[in-house]
């Protein structure tokens, strides 16, 4: 059995249900941490730890939706699976809009729950991987001088060296040196690679 990476954070105010869900996930070999209230969870939340949420929709004080929103406001959003006592359509729509992975009705089918949780964990991992990659790119881009960034922008926009030199009021040879520096700093070997990287980093091609 493949042990899924990441932790499942379960929040339910009903102790018996909380214990049962925790057991079910643990039986499947998952890392589970259970919380009896949203407040307790928020106090002990480590945003760096990978993992997903399993939330009871209706809880006193702060309900599942409130908790999800609070995390999003803090920039600590996690994929969440919602559990609800009854099929409350408006609430499920809101939950899905806020990025819920799934919305399940109690008593919940074990396969459905496990699938949804695996899905959520995977999504968290993917999001974290993407975040890590983006961070690397940003680190590399940060090595460039402002002049080099200017040149990069022109290159990505598909201009020729001659055109760039004219635009920036310099000679073609200087531009070539800049391009070489950029390729080295960004660790790319071809123009195509450079363009893909700039795209992933979210740099819009400036005209």
């Amino acid at each position: 059995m493949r042990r899924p990476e990441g932790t499942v954070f379960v929040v339910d105010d009903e102790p018996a249900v909380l214990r049962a869900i925790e057991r079910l996930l643990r039986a499947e070999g998952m890392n589970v941490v259970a919380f009896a209230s949203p407040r307790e969870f928020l106090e002990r939340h480590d945003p760096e730890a990978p993992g997903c949420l399993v939330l009871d929709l209706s809880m006193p004080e702060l309900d599942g939706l409130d908790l999800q929103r609070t995390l999003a406001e803090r920039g600590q959003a996690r994929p969440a699976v919602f559990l609800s006592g009854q099929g409350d359509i408006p609430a499920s729509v809101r939950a899905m809009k806020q990025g819920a992975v799934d919305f399940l009705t109690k008593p919940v089918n074990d396969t459905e729950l496990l699938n949804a949780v695996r899905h959520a964990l995977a999504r968290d991992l993917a999001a974290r991987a993407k975040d890590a990659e983006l961070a690397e790119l940003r680190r590399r881009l940060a090595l460039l001088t402002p002049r080099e960034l200017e040149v990069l922008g022109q290159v990505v926009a598909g201009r020729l060296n001659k055109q760039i030199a004219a635009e920036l009021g310099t000679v073609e040879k200087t531009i070539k040196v800049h391009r070489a520096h950029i390729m080295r700093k960004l660790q790319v070997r071809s123009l195509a690679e450079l363009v893909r990287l700039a795209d992933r980093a979210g740099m819009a091609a400036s005209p």
Partner: protein
Amino acid sequence: MIHAGHCRAFRPDFFMAHTHPISWITVIWSMAASACLMLAGVYLVIWLKQKNRPACLLFSLLALTMAVFSGFEYCLMRADSPREFGELLYWIHVPVSVATLSVIGFVHLQFGTGRAWLAYAACGLRGLAASLNFLSTPNLNYAEITVLRHIPLPGGETAAVAEGIRGPWVAIAELSLLLTIAYLADALLSLWRRGGAGNRRSAALLGGSILFFAVTAAGSTLLIHAGVIRTPYLVSLPFLPVLLAMGYELGSDVLRAAQLARRLEVSEAELQESQERIRLAADAADLSLWLWDIAKDEVWTMEQGRALYGIPKNQRIDFARFMDTLHEEDRAPVRQAISKALQGGGDYEGEYRVLLPDGKTRWVAARGRVEFDGRGQPVRMRGVSINITRRKLAEREIQKQRSELAHLSRVTMLGELSGSLAHELNQPLAAVLANAQAARRFLEHEPIDIGELKEILGDIVEEDKRAGEIIHRLRLLFRKGELQYEPADVNTLVADVLKLVRSDLVNQGVEVETALAPTLPQVSCDRVQLLQVLLNLVVNACDAMAGLEQPERQIRIETAVAAGGGVRLSVADRGRGIPAEDLERIFEPFMTTKSQGLGLGLSVCRTIVTAHGGTIQAANNPGGGACFSLILPPLPERADAPA
């Protein structure tokens, strides 16, 4: 039979009155004799009718003796020879002795006064004198009668008077006479001293006349014996005043009896009239009067009373027979209520079922009061009974309708709460399912974690029980049944209601604060109906706060001991409150502030609480929001529920 022979001599004289001018002596003595005889006869009849008055018999005897005496006197006056005179005197001691005994006896029995030794001495001496007389010749009075003189009397009449030698023992007879007089005087004086109008009148009239008779008779006799005067013996004539006095007494008695009889007649008529009136009133009100003589254990009741209890006309009714007519379940409470009344409470009140001979059941209400004697012992109990079957049936019908309305309202409310209730049931089901699925997965692990599985099974059992309890509570609320009053703790009811609506409260973001008294007296209630009331109040409170910001949505439930020893419960919200003019109207049916709902909830609540003997009221909190408080009475002292 010297006496009888004498009478033969007396009678021809009396009948000769047809041919000769009537002798005044004959007239007076025969009149005196017949008057005495008549009085004797009257008192004999009185005694025969009233055997408890032996004085009447003695007086009758005295009068009879006097009649005999007047005969003797008459014969003495008419005696022809000393021998005849002596024989008459010999026999006269019989009536003298009888007269002495009866006059003393009569005074003793009639007045009960006078010194006893005087009476005994007088009687004793009289007896001695009579005995000596029978041993003497010719008699006690004379040792020898020498000559018989005929002294002239007015009207040309003569009377025989004896002369001779005085007997040696005659003083004993005289002493007896004096003692008799002394006894009579003493008795009358004591009676006079005792005072009182009745005593003095008797002393003056009856006693005075008897004393006069005794003194006169005795005095004349003594004087004759002493030879001071020469007259015939005069005893029966002085008796005439006694005759008159007794006649007067008798007349007064007859008069009084007549008056009493007339008064009795009037009051009997009045009694009948008032009995008739009571019967009419009882008839009109359908009341049956009854009277239970406790000592004889006998119950009297009117005809309609017998009909009411289905008891045949001539059957004797005692307490056991009465108890037999009651429905078995009602016997113990009735017995208890009656014994409480007998033990000093005095008042009795009961409502019970009577089983009629035809198998039908009749409801009867009875009220009674025990009457006690001077020592506080119950003597009798009287009261009324009334047929209340129609009222009871109507009450039952009303109760049934109320119960149906309450059920309708309850089901409606439960319908509104169904989402919340389903959620409440869902929680344990969800836990059971997830636990079972987890267990199945743990069983595939190597090695199997027995501890974990034990915990899981424990949780499954617990959660299944919880689900069962919820279903039980719901079934209770959905049930449509007879009211069942039983002692209950209000705090427990509050907890039950909060369990039922928990998820509804959570969903609506309502917080509940409870301030429950640690110890509360129990109340007699139908659990389901009281749960319904509380549920209604809590749901209403939630609805009243739907428009508020979430932290403001708070309900406060308080329980406390009420002033009268009962329980006070209040449910307060923080909503907008109730307009002052609507505080009473909200308990009217079909009065609602909600867009959905029949407006029956609070009116049903009031009906339920009132049926429990309690009150429910609405008020506005000083800090805003409405507060509903209900007060329930404590359990009655006796362990029986309201009938």
